[in-house]
């Protein structure tokens, strides 16, 4: 007999204490977060919040139309999303996937928690002045661009995932300068616009779903370059 066919403890075995289970869960979550460098990511997100605060406090803005006015807030939102996307990279690869049955929940929890942390950090940062579009637009933009990053992580791998938010940022700035009004360019839509919100949160949900279920792509280049 091998352990492969065993699905439950032997009769009479001592069950694990509840406190021990909880501690085990916490330890598992902590180890996962550390392996994804989440503490460093949280510090960086706080840094983005501070940068936004400084930019709004001292009225940093780019002269010009709607695209130019949104550069500073949008670039901090995209930066936060890029950091979240990069946390999806895992160093363990196949062994982790083969043994970690809670991995999907950990991926989901980490991505949601970091997105919430980014929104919180930028919300605190926005107290430095008047944020264009307000909280609703900022939360929508962060969620949507993070979704782009997560999709990018699923397709290109965690280490290249930052390219998605950065590319979306450049394309959005160009589209806004050209007065493109599609809801897929949600940063240009009004804060409570339904179309923009649907697109942004749809992308976020798609990114979350892909990263949760499939994980990020293990690129050969992650280790070869």
């Amino acid at each position, binding site marked *: 007999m091998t352990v492969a066919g065993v699905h439950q403890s032997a009769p009479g075995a001592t069950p694990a204490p509840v406190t021990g289970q909880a501690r085990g869960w916490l330890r598992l979550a902590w180890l996962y977060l550390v392996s994804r*460098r989440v503490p460093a990511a949280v510090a960086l997100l706080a840094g983005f919040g501070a940068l936004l605060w400084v930019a709004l406090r001292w009225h940093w803005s780019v002269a010009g139309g709607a695209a130019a006015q949104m550069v500073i807030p949008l*670039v901090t939102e995209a*930066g936060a999303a890029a950091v979240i996307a990069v946390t999806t990279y895992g160093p363990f690869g196949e062994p982790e996937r083969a043994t970690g049955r809670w991995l999907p929940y950990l991926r989901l929890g980490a991505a949601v928690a970091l997105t919430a942390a980014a929104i919180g950090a930028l919300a605190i940062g926005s107290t430095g002045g008047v944020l264009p579009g307000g909280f609703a637009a900022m939360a929508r933009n962060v969620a949507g661009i993070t979704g782009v990053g997560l999709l990018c992580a699923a397709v290109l791998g965690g280490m290249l995932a930052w*390219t998605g938010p950065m590319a979306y*940022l450049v394309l959005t700035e160009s589209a806004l300068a050209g007065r493109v009004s599609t809801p897929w360019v949600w940063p240009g839509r009004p804060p409570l616009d339904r179309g923009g919100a649907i697109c942004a949160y749809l992308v976020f949900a798609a990114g979350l779903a892909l990263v949760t279920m499939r994980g990020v792509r293990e690129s050969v280049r992650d280790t070869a370059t």
Partner: protein
Amino acid sequence: MTVTSAPVRSTPRQAPQAAPRNMARLLWVELRHNAMPLVLPLIAVIFWFDSYRIAATLPPLWNTRLYYILGQGHALLDFAPFVAGVAAWMGSRDTRRGTGDLVTATVRPRWEAQLATWAATVIWAVGAYLVFVAVTLVLLGRPDVWGGLPWWSVAADGVGVAAFASAGFALGASFPGRFITPIAAFAGFFAMGISSQIGFSASGGWALILPTMSTGNFGQDAGIFYQFLPDLPMARVMFLAGIAVTAVGLLGLPVSAGGPRLRRSAAAVTVTGAAAVVAAVALAFTAQVGPYGTVIPALHDAASDRPVPYTPVCGNAGIPVCLQPAYRPYLSDVTTALRPVISQVTGLPGAPVRASQSAAIFATGAALKGLGQIPALGGSPPVLSLPLGAISLPDSFGQDSPSFISQLKVEFVHALVVSGGATYGNPAQQAVEAVLLQNAGIPLAAQPHAIPWPISSGPRQTATYPQPIAAAAQRLAAMPATTRRAWLAAHLPALRAGRLTLGQLP
């Protein structure tokens, strides 16, 4: 025999020759294993969307089509975040993989090995930039685009790509980790955003060195009536190359980078790069905006001031109208705009006998105020000079053909009625202008708010004319054409000189 008694071997003769060959081999290995090609398709898409797509819709003049790409630095913006991010990834490679100690202990100095990786990264980035720009120029140049190309601006942005790649590489090597790539990319975009902010709001000084700064050095009639002045792009090349060299030099300063001699060389490289940056900024401080662009006395070549010769193309609007051949597509719009005004004033004292395009120039000093910016009458017999390069042409910056024609009518009438053209004009002059424009096809009610006005300030910004001006204009408009013409023949010189008041109008 012990090792201490063994004779010292002389250095093999082939060693000096082998070193460069090994370096070339190392560079080749780094080129083949570089990560930059991974993001080039993405950059190509962004470059197409952000730079080429917009430029292709602009009028067929190089200075207009390349204004967005090179003048405002969008080519560099499309590259900067991505090359900085990937270069940071390449710079952090050894430490990220935990092989830093291993490669530091090899026979080749650490800095030398890093130089090979850096060079491969920069070669990929700058090579891709040159290829993308070359393809863009070929596509934008079909079938015929007029004017000279700003080659120095192309070079400046290319060196800018190298600077962002070098800075990203140095960041990655200094602070290795998974987050250094998005941080470097973020920093690249942020730097370009701040550069744009300063570029749009500043008018001179050190800000001229920024690659996003187009004020006073890109546009107008550069490359058409006169050459693009290379002074400022040359200073920018020096500035950006200095940043690249400084970043590379900094990598060689730590103890682990190599021996004392190598580190002294790295220090010299760093100082040289920093000196180039400081010198370039100092040169920018000495810059002055001249008629043909920004002049830096220390870099200026008088040969750059020679006008570009051309044979004009002419049409007829009641008087001959001649344009630079680059503006041939707009000749019919110009004659359409001038004809209804000319028909009202032809034969009057001071009316132009011909119209000729003049160069739109950059200088905005008191002596040059208005000239080269808006149409003006001058000479004997009077000639109307038309600096079309100072007006947004149809299909550019939101302008369409009817607006272009309306703007030309307004500017011509203003040049005819207000001497000097650069002042707003008194109420009597405004009333006469309003009547001439109404008879030229712009209804009084549509003036003054609905038509573009060449002078940025003044009561024309209001939605309607003040009541006394509107009343005088309506009185003049109600007069028979022959009576009005006879009054103009008698009073146009006094009106132009500003000696008539509103009460003296019929």
